[in-house]
């Protein structure tokens, strides 16, 4: 069993020193997601600047309690999406989702996912995919709520969509 594939150095580094932690103002929406099987919890805020021509992910702040995979994933995600246009961030979300749901068959693009490629090994451990996706699902939920779209998901539905 290849533990090193699961726990890459990048993941352990982000776990030890997570980026962009804490809950900050201003924000458009705040969500609270849990992983009911293990109890991991995440409160996450999204601030979208929609003033310009294209909406921009101005800030993502969070407070999380959970395993190394879920913590590192939240950290890596904020690195990736903060400052990006919303469209770009949503595209990254989809790419990360594809990677996680690819059962280890998807080759990640380092230019796009940066530190996120470290999670490629997680896809081979089905029980841990939920951990890696917790922050991303919360971000998407909070983003949808910020934009006032009618696609708000609650935590349970998120869990459902992850099965």
């Amino acid at each position, binding site marked *: *069993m290849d*533990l090193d594939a*699961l*726990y890459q150095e990048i993941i*352990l580094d982000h776990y*030890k020193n997570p980026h962009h932690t804490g809950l900050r103002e201003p924000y458009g929406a705040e969500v609270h997601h849990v992983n009911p*099987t*293990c*109890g*991991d*919890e995440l409160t996450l805020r999204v601030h979208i600047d929609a003033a310009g021509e294209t909406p921009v992910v101005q800030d993502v702040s969070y407070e999380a*309690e*959970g*395993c*190394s*995979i879920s*913590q590192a994933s939240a950290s890596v995600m904020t690195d990736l999406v903060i400052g990006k246009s919303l469209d770009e961030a949503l595209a990254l979300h989809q790419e990360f989702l594809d990677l996680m749901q690819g059962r280890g068959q998807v080759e990640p693009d380092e230019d796009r996912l940066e530190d996120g490629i470290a999670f490629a090994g997680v896809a081979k*451990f089905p029980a*841990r995919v939920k*951990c890696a996706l917790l922050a991303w699902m919360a971000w998407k939920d909070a983003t949808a709520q910020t934009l006032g779209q009618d696609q708000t998901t609650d935590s349970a539905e998120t869990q459902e969509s992850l099965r």
Partner: protein
Amino acid sequence: MTTPTHLTDTFDVTASLDVEGIRADFPILSRRLADDRPLVYLDSANTSQKPRQVLDVLAEHYSQHNANVARAVHQLGAESTEAFEGARDKVCRFIGAPHRDEVVFAKNSSEALNLVANVLAWSRGRHRVGEGDEVLITEMEHHSNIVPWQLLTERTGARLRWFGLTDEGRLDLSNIDELITERTKVVSLVWVSNMLGTVNPVGEIARRAHEVGALVVVDASQAVPQMPVDVVELGADLVAFTGHKMVGPTGIGVLWGRRDLLEELPPFLGGGEMIETVTMERSTYAPPPAKFEAGTPPIAQAIGLGAAVDYLSSLGMHNVAAHERAITAYALEQLTAIDGLTVLGPTEAVDRGGAISFEIDGIHPHDVSQVLDSLGIAVRAGHHCAKPAHKRFGVQSSTRASGYLYTTQAEIDALVEGLHYTKKFFRVD
């Protein structure tokens, strides 16, 4: 790893059980996992493994005797019914029940507890739980002994109250006089905690509850597998436990109840076998236990539970309990010696069951169990369906190791070694 010398007097696995002989009965224990690692199964509080003696009975039932029970006139039906009802007799003797009719088969402990919580709402008798009444539970309950009572009290307007816990992980009985009052209709508590391992003083609490006329319900899911049980001596009115934690199959549990009480309470699920007669307008009901066993029961599973009871009885529950005490004492001794490891619950093997939940500074339980799994060691990580108890101790989740009659000292040593490796892996040494 050498055995600490002060333990050699008290710890001798072979004194109570022939563990190597027992292990030979459990085919799964000789399984090899990824990287050809032998299985070290320390998740028995979650579900126990099954011996050949149980697996063979299940296979033989389906291959030789399969038929529905209590309604078929043919030979197979008679054989199946005899085996099914025979299992009831075995369970009856195993728990010291005065009458076989007091043994109700359910799907598991959760269903048994839900049965009780529901029929108490529906009862029109003196045990009915309604507005203004109180139900008393404890902060160390498994969710299956919390949620049914929340549902009951929310639906009826009754009030849910609970005993808190001491820092050591025992019930805080200091305010028992405030909690058990004339308004208390039900006291439902766990006998042995699945998370903290605590063995609760059920007899003392039952006596107090009975003084105010309250019913006493006991979740014995972790008790019946590990110790000799006499439900009359216990002093409870209703006792729930499950087969799969006591070397039996999944899908079969037991609700024991005093016969007069079971007769008085209304039915739970309606359907086949629970009736006396049915007209289009109304029905009358069979006496217990059939009254609470609507539909085709888990026949093979009940028969398998009977075989499990035979297996445990052949070992002797006193011996099983002695082995559990010894292995738990050894595990506690070894685990508490690990730097940065904190046991949640009593740290001495006194009034304590075999589940040992713990935290390791700087490593999440999911990560602990993932690394242990890579070494072939199976433990549970998470909240163990006891979120409030975790919250009480300021943690979100924990890692739990739990042994059983087949657990060896060498397996505890493997766990300890695995935890040292885990600490190195996550650089918290």
